């Protein structure tokens, strides 16, 4: 059964991108295990405001695990200790009375800290702008049977498209590599007929942009796959490598 617990949270506080950050420790009393992790942070912020202090800045939006806005590196895991969920879906019942919870922002050269726990993830938007779209005019709705797509391909494309671009892969990676994200975005198109038209251009441009923005080189440790809230498989990375090499050899 859910109980009320007393916890200590160690939170990364940083006033701005150029400022030096540090940890601050806060005590929280009677937190219901039924509340979500972000609700716990809301309670912390209310407490801070009542004390006349500056609340902790953190990213969040839909709070149902679909927008990719929430982040947080909690006790050694991106999105916390639970499996296949985002931070907003994490509940306090994953923690015990008396626990100290360490909360940090994503740390990677590609994601500079803006303030406290909020990082700048516009690098992902730039990678998408470099080629993560289909620009062919697909016209009106064709008959469903005019372009047959094997079920396996459709499923694999859908699995890749489940990526919400939260950046947990980069946060988990010891190399700060964005390969899982780029691989998912390249795969979701490369598997489908509409996406194949620009597949070569897309793979080359997205990888070039990823490298340009300072993300690391993938060494296949597989940490990204383990921490991904949407279970994106690293076999997508093999597909990205394939697409990229095919494109380069065609040149």
């Amino acid at each position, binding site marked *: 059964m859910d109980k009320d617990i007393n916890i200590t949270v*160690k939170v*990364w506080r940083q006033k701005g991108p150029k400022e030096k*950050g540090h*940890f601050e420790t806060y005590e929280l009393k009677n937190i219901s295990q039924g509340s979500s992790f972000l609700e716990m942070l809301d309670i912390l912020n209310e407490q801070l405001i009542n004390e006349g202090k500056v609340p902790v800045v953190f990213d969040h939006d839909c709070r149902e695990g679909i927008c990719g806005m929430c982040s947080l*590196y*909690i*006790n*050694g*895991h991106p999105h916390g*200790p639970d499996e296949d969920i985002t931070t907003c879906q994490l509940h306090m019942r994953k923690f015990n009375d008396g626990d100290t919870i*360490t909360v*940090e922002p994503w*740390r*990677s*050269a*590609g994601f500079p*800290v803006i303030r406290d726990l909020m990082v700048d993830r516009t690098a992902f938007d730039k990678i998408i702008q470099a080629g993560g779209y289909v620009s062919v005019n697909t016209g009106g709705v064709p008959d469903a049977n005019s372009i047959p797509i094997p079920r396996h391909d459709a499923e694999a494309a859908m699995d890749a498209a489940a990526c919400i671009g939260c950046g947990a892969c980069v946060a*988990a990676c*010891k*190399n*700060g*590599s964005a*390969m899982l994200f780029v691989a998912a975005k390249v795969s979701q198109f490369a598997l489908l007929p509409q996406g194949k038209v620009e597949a070569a251009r897309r793979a080359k441009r997205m*990888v*070039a942009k*990823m*490298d340009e923005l*300072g*993300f*690391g*080189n*993938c*060494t*296949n*440790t*597989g*940490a990204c796959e*383990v*921490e991904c809230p949407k279970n994106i*498989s*690293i*076999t997508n*990375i*093999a*597909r*990205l*490598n*394939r*697409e*990229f*090499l095919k494109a*380069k050899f065609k040149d």
Partner: protein
Amino acid sequence: MSWLINSSIGRKVVQSLSGLFLILFLLFHMCMNVVLIFNYETYDFLANEILGANWWAIVGTLIIALGVVIHILYGIILTLQNQKARGKDKYASSSKTPQAWSSKNMFVLGLVILIFVLLHLYQMWYEMQFKELFHISGARTDGAQLVAEKFSQLWVVVAYIIGFIGLWFHLTHGFWSALHTVGWNNTVWMKRIKVLGNIVSTIICLGFIVVAIAVHLGYSNLLG
């Protein structure tokens, strides 16, 4: 072809292909060592007549050396770039993400192997091919005897085994990772490639270790 230097995937492909090439060389080297268990004369014949200071052996040595240099150079470049990409601030709560130990320590394992290879080159290759090639006195043509002399010392056997264990960990990640990088992987092949990698690395390292121990204990030249 500038993408082999400028692009992350390009650099990884170079690292991957040079690694796969070195695995092939290791397989050949291991097979040749196993000959020591059976017959010293055959080993010396292979070492002197088939390899030795013949032009093809020298070309082969240079190609392998090139492979090693490229693999080390790219390993260093990739590692430095990755440390930079990780950023200056480190996580205070250390990563609890379960990952294969070897995959996180490829650089350190590579250093262990490099130190071992330098020792090995000094003890064996320098005495045999190098001295013969540059007409330095004392070039050994009795390769098998040289190996037997070196492996009669316990510390040499221990040092070599440490090197081989490092190599085993390096290869268990390296093999499947190399194939993954050149794009030869999917959900079905992932498990197969990992198992295949474990088999290949075990065959290579076990072959080397068995020969080292057998020679040390005198179970060599059995058909001699």
